[in-house]
């Protein structure tokens, strides 16, 4: 049986309205053949995890440009663990200083993309590191 298409939830957690990057990533992933669900803005971590579970997502891409990444990324990971969904790959991007990147990777964020990243790098990451659940 052919493998199911990888499903990615692209989400904007928190109150930050900078959605240019999230929308571009959502579109680039869709154009690369993935199934993409874009949550829209101002989502709570609870809403994002609920969407991911409901949509049977294989990965969540989080975009934060407000400086609130430490709290919001960690909260999403925590909720996924609580729901027994730690196999959902979490990656993200935004204005994220290097020392925070190390801290976020240590708690389970798979990859973080900062300004200047090509959409092709993100597509490649999803292709190489995210598998569709069977």
């Amino acid at each position, binding site marked *: 049986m052919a493998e199911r298409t990888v499903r990615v939830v692209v989400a904007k957690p*928190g*109150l*930050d*309205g*900078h*959605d*240019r990057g*999230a*929308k*571009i990533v*959502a*579109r*680039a992933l869709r154009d690369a053949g993935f199934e993409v669900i*874009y949550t*829209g*803005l*101002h989502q*709570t971590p609870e809403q994002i995890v609920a969407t991911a579970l409901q949509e049977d997502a294989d990965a969540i891409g989080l975009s934060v440009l*407000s*400086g*609130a990444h*430490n*709290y*919001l990324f960690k*909260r999403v990971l925590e909720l996924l663990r609580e729901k027994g969904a730690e196999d959902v790959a979490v990656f993200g991007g935004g*204005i994220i*200083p*290097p020392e925070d990147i190390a801290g976020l990777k240590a708690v389970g964020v798979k990859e973080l993309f*900062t*300004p*200047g990243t*090509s*959409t*092709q790098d993100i597509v490649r990451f999803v292709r190489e590191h995210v598998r569709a659940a069977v």
Partner: protein
Amino acid sequence: MSGKREWEERTYRPFVERTPERAVRFESLSGIPVEPLYTPEDLADRTYEERLGYPGEYPFTRGVYPTMYRGRLWTMRMFAGFGRPEDTNARFKYLLAQGQTGLSTAFDMPALMGYDADHPRARGEVGKEGVSISTLDDFERLFADIPLGEVTTSMTINCTASVALAMYLAVAEKQGVAWDRVGGTMQNDMLKEFIAQKEWICPPEPAVRIVTDMIEFTARHVPRFNPVSISGYHIREAGSTAVQELAFTLADGLGYVEAALARGLDVDSFAPRLSFFFDIHNDFFEEIAKLRAARRMWARFMKERYGATQPESMRLRTHTQTAGVSATAQQPLNNIARVALQALAAVLGGAQSLHTNSYDETWALPTEEAVTVALRTQQVIAEETHTALTIDPLGGSYYLEALTDRMEAAALDYVRRIDAMGGMIRAIDAGFPQKEIADAAYRYQLMDDRGEKVVVGVNRYAMHDERPIHYLRIDESVELEQIEKVRRFKAARDMTRVERRLEQLAEACRNGSNVMPVLIDAVKDYASLGEVSDVYRRVFGLYREPIIF
């Protein structure tokens, strides 16, 4: 045959056949084709008076004031805000001591979205992207020892701008400064929030109604205050072209004018205080052309479409800011060069006010050192380059004038399409500007990815071993401290008074009377920004965005 065509055939083409031009796209950043040469023939369709006129006179293409920078330099206004009110107050005082001439306040995301610091939705965001504000107590600390009768303050705040205006006027009153001496600007441009910046509480109709309340209130009581700064900046940063920025911004402006006219206000009573805010991006001439086209178009709209009779009503006064989105995280010092060139374009474009971005903003909020370089960049332009000695020094450049005409025509086409949809609120409901911007943003990204658009230090001239830079950290303890302070302050209020004020506000929202007078009383009794926003949520309902990507 025209002289230009003759030159092309006689000299240019044979030369290009032997020595080809560089293999780049000869088009502006917005995709306007750029010819090898412009001559007087490109400007033959309009007279000098129609196209340009004179500074301080209709159609204001060359500048809104008769003396421009010979009379007074542009206002150097650096956007600042982070952490607790006292942290930002200290930065304000530092900037004033460095020769800055106006203040500009950045609020944190909870304040911008209508939540107090102690609200669960504020977690992780308090004081991060701007200063944390919940009650008048915070506002008093933000402006402590800053004389509001002497300094003008710009505030980048939109769906909660009514609260910020109420608090600002309350602080002025406490300082003993009469409202008619208070000057400043509220961004308060809700239409572009739905299009681009995406901070909102309630849907467009009630949001614009509150904006109109503020236009009406300031026209009567705070005559030196600009109640709205009609902003292209965020539209551009969200990914639009320069033409789309020009068109959507002016179309938003027309939306406010129409709302105020529908309220029964006389156009000349409020139009002089409408102000604008444009992005200044990398394409040097296109950005200068954009500001000139904006002035000419706005003057025509105000005179011909709305019958304004006062020249002040036709004057498009604008703040400008260098393009945050053009800054790179790679080789961040290169941003200083980008900002300098963009700032020069703003000045050559005749801006009234300018914020120069700091080179480290792709990493975090700027350090004091980075902000100082950005401010000094403006001071170098003002004091050393001699570009401010004559008015509109590039006026008459064949290329610039042809580009100005071209941008005007392309933007007018968009404005007509929005008119045909029934105005900007209807266009937003249909997702039109949002989709146009998303498409343009994606096109730009693909051009970057393919290297068709060169980004120095990123997709060309990249370096692998980059030195890390020093950047600003907001201590996590700031959030906890601010939350605690707000909780304590709120607990000590007279809640009967607060609740009565909030009920009066709800009543004003429902019965259509101007919200400002009761809102000012409410913040004086320490009703908080979040509580006022809750009233808006309860009475007007929440906005839900159409999902477009």
